[in-house]
């Protein structure tokens, strides 16, 4: 079963993403901050990670860089409200494989995950 890790400090966003993904045959894991996300990532080795950027302890961009440094094959999709072109570019340079923005659109979320899984 495909494992997906949702990382967001907002329980509302985690709930929304979890519900959107529940119609697919995915095993969903959650992390509420960057530190927990790295812990869960290396314990569970999810196929895809959805990662928020603005989080209280460590920013999503730092989490992305750290995970990619230790696992260059990590498939991380940024899931954020940040709409800046420069942020999109920074995450691409750090190795993100997708970028979805809040408020989430179910079709866009599922399509992005399918694309990432099909390309792996």
């Amino acid at each position, binding site marked *: 079963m495909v494992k997906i890790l949702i990382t967001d400090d907002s329980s509302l966003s985690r709930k*929304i993403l979890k*519900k959107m993904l529940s119609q697919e045959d995915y095993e969903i894991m959650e992390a509420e901050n960057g530190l927990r996300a790295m812990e869960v990532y290396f314990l569970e080795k999810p196929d895809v990670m959805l990662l928020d950027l603005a989080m209280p302890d460590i920013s999503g961009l730092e989490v992305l860089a750290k995970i990619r440094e230790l696992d260059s094959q990590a498939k991380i999709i940024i899931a954020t*409200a940040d709409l800046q072109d420069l942020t999109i570019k920074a995450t691409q340079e750090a190795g993100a494989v997708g970028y979805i923005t809040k408020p989430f659109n179910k079709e866009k979320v599922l399509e992005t995950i399918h694309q990432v899984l099909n390309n792996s």
Partner: protein
Amino acid sequence: MKELTEKQRDALSELLNMGFARTAASLSQLTGNRVLLDAPYVSIHPIKKLSKELANFVTGEIATVQQIFTGNVSGNALLLLNYDGALVLSDLIDPDLEYEDENDQKNDQKNNQKKRKTPNPEILTEIGNILLNSCMSVFGNILNISISFSVPRLYLEALDGLLHSLVIQDEEMRYAMLVYTSFRLKENAVTGYMIMILSVSSLDNLLVAVEHWADELLEDA
């Protein structure tokens, strides 16, 4: 003090996250720099205690753009910028447009000091207008409430004075929703905060709308 439920706080934080993201995108477009956003923190305080609360993180001289908004949810929106950051920002947007306050010049000459540059009020007011509008428009669109804005006003004075005048102007403005989100650009040269000050009834309306929005999001997901 009015307490937010966990559901209200979570939904409000997400809404503010989206509003600030739009603000950051606008600021990034204006300046050509990436804007770093911290996770939003929301708290509600009696307005009379706001100065004390703000003193925890807003220090030194600041420039404030204030905009009154009206509608189902009405109140004051404030954009706070560190004073030196306001200078950097006005330079980034229009480096050719020099502005020096005449009074400052006179004082500087009298004190035989180097002339001090002042943030260009026109540019700062317009920045405030764009940033506050982009954030508040997201609230309006998402919550499906109509919000109208007044002309923005710039204050280059201590925040205490401005907050005091708000308390005096409208006794109904008893609560401030403090949005503890800072944004930074140019390697922390510019830092800013946004604050919404709402009347009791507006705060209640906002919380009802936010909870409704969160319920709808979950239903539609």
